[in-house]
């Protein structure tokens, strides 16, 4: 019985595994200064940007791929990756009608109807979407509506052209190009991403959203996202991602930087659903991502919420540097691993300012033969008086062949700090499932009920529509995984 259920789940296809036949404009495989110059030239970048890239590349060459994470995989051959792939023809798109119909079909399949988004324009509850297809941003919706408020929401490439002073000022502030191996790689070869600037005193009237899609084979995706919230501003930002089903591993090494000024708040939510590989662990995305925010000034707040169900290997620690006094950092995470997926994910909360507060709620769910690790650092620097942190790291096991691990690091250099850490490990048992069945609730529903109950604190933090999507995704990711 248990095996049947497992079988059923395993045979469940990754729904987003299709590819789109779009002619692509690609760089030759491999990585060297010429390729970087090629990318920079393709994007018609100013000299300083090329310099930024080359500097990062020279640094990267001397760096070693990190091995401390609790994951094992065959390291990617960085000379065997295509670093630039753009759907052709790449020209300025004036309206949706000019977008390649194949591309539009893809996004419809993914459940994002641009047409619908357009039709609904002007309605308050709307979401503005930027779509990044392989290496380039193909369309940003609602740009004009947002511009009326002074909000800049565009692709990163456009920002480099149209707002170079902002990009130059903030780029690398939260994630310096020398930060780590993958961040350095990204800084050298990043192709596109989203850029968002919320001016003083503005609350974004809609949620901003970027949808990332890897399509072309043999490519890596290296996008760069930057969100700057000026004084007294607020924005809620959503990120979604999928990739086709391929036998090879594809690398996704993104960088996200968030900067908040005085009294500003950024809420960043991710539902990550990159292709996780097949039941034997073949294929899938390597998701090696650096996400960090700086609460640069007083009373600002950065909140990360992530629901991670995809990727073969995840290496990701969305962090907050609490520099301003009274600033607040939050991290809410649900990470699900099934089959042979591996995740090493968590956060870093660096307390520098006085009266800074951070909250970490991490919910790991492991099923199949997977390994799920929480790794988190809470650092209270000297002088960060009255800093507070509360961490809760829970693990839920399904079956007896998976692993859950917790690696909390706490470094306190100020005596006034109050740091709390709680951790639990539990298991969905046959007894619980039988109890549910005896009340008329079948296995699938019961698992959904238990898992959603377990993740409630995190799912509650997601914007409404995203929460519904996340719940469905959790159910699909774990279907039949109790044996």
């Amino acid at each position, binding site marked *: 019985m248990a095996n049947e259920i497992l079988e059923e789940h395993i045979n469940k296809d990754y729904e987003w595994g299709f590819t789109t036949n779009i002619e692509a404009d690609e760089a030759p495989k491999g990585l060297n200064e010429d390729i970087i110059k090629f990318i920079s030239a393709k994007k018609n970048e100013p000299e300083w940007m090329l310099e930024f890239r080359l500097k990062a590349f020279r640094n990267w060459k001397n760096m070693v791929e990190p091995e401390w994470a609790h994951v094992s995989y065959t390291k990617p051959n960085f000379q065997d990756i295509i670093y630039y792939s753009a759907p052709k023809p790449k020209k300025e798109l004036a309206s949706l009608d000019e977008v390649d119909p194949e591309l539009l079909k893809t996004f419809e399949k993914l459940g994002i109807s641009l047409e619908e988004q357009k039709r609904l324009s002007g309605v308050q509850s709307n979401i503005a979407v930027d779509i990044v297809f392989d290496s380039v941003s193909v369309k940003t919706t609602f740009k004009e509506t947002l511009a009326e408020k002074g909000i800049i929401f565009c692709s990163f490439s456009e920002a480099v052209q149209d707002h170079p002073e902002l990009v130059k000022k903030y780029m690398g502030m939260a994630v310096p190009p020398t930060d780590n191996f993958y961040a350095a790689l990204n800084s050298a070869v990043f192709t596109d991403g989203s850029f968002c600037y919320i001016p003083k005193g503005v609350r974004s009237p809609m949620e901003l959203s970027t949808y990332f899609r890897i399509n072309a084979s043999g490519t890596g995706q290296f996008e760069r996202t930057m969100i700057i919230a000026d004084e007294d501003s607020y924005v809620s930002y959503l990120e979604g991602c999928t990739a086709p089903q391929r036998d090879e591993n594809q690398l996704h090494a993104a960088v996200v930087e968030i900067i908040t000024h005085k009294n500003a708040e950024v809420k960043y939510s991710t539902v990550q659903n990159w292709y996780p590989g097949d039941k034997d662990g073949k294929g899938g995305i390597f998701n090696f991502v650096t996400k960090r925010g700086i609460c640069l000034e007083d009373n600002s707040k950065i909140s990360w919420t992530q629901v991670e169900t995809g990727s073969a290997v995840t290496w990701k620690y969305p962090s907050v540097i609490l520099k301003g006094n009274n600033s607040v950092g939050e991290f809410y995470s649900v990470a699900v691993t099934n089959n042979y997926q591996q995740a090493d994910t968590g956060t870093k909360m660096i307390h520098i300012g006085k009266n800074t507060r951070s909250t970490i709620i991490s919910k790991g769910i492991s099923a199949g033969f997977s390994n799920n690790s929480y790794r988190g650092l809470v650092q209270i620097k000297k002088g960060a008086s009255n800093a507070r942190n509360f961490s809760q790291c829970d693990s839920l096991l399904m079956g007896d062949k998976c692993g859950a691990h917790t690696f909390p690091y706490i470094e306190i250099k100020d005596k006034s700090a109050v740091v709390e850490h709680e951790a639990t490990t539990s298991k969905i048992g046959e007894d*619980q499932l039988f*109890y*549910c*069945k005896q*009340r*008329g*609730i079948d296995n699938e529903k019961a698992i959904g*009920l*238990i898992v959603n*109950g377990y993740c409630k604190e995190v799912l509650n933090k997601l914007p409404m529509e995203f929460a519904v999507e996340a719940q469905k995704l959790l159910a699909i990711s774990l279907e039949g995984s109790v044996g």
Partner: protein
Amino acid sequence: MINIKNLHASIGDKEILRGINLEVKAGEVHAIMGPNGSGKSTLSSVLAGREDYDVTEGEVIFNGKNLLDLPAEDRAREGLFLAFQYPIEIPGVSNINFLRTALNEIRAYQGQEEMAAKDFLALVKEKSKLVELDAKLASRSVNEGFSGGEKKRNEIFQMAMLNPKLAILDETDSGLDIDALRIVATGVNKLKSKDNATIVITHYQRLLDYIVPDFVHILYNGRIVKSGGKELALEMEAKGYDEIKSQFDSLES
């Protein structure tokens, strides 16, 4: 209502039920008593569809359907309810959400629409009074941190909410003090109708002072060895099971 014919069940190589015959009609209350290890809980588990047991022989007809062919969830949806001896905790899932899901799954199976939230809450209010269940328990996680008595009352509360045709109470009296016992029994009695039936599995006669059975069956060594009216329970209480044991042990050897 339910007709159990020559039911044999084993766990691993060990045969535990060795030919149970029992018919329960609508409107009846049957008590099943017996010493430890006689197969009482196995019987309730097999009827509810726990997969740890293999049914090796016999059949069970429930509402005209072959019960043993149905998965556990469909047995519940057909109207079979088991009040667990040891109710299970489900952290993070509120009692209310759990019951609402259960109720709507059962309704869907029976071709009924989902119950409106307003009606559901009214039902919760009405039924929780029946077992004097604190309203706060309804919003807490299923059985998590409940006292023994609260867990048992919660089982009867769930029974009241789901309105089963046949309820099997598996040692519902164990671990209850006299007040809780009275509350639980009162709840069960109030739920009794001419259309439903109850099987009370118990070790002691005590519960039967409150839930008065129409029939009492003595289970020993996997078989019903003696049946009678409610006086049989009193007789067992007075004499103990030793006489039965020696009588049937000698028959077997």
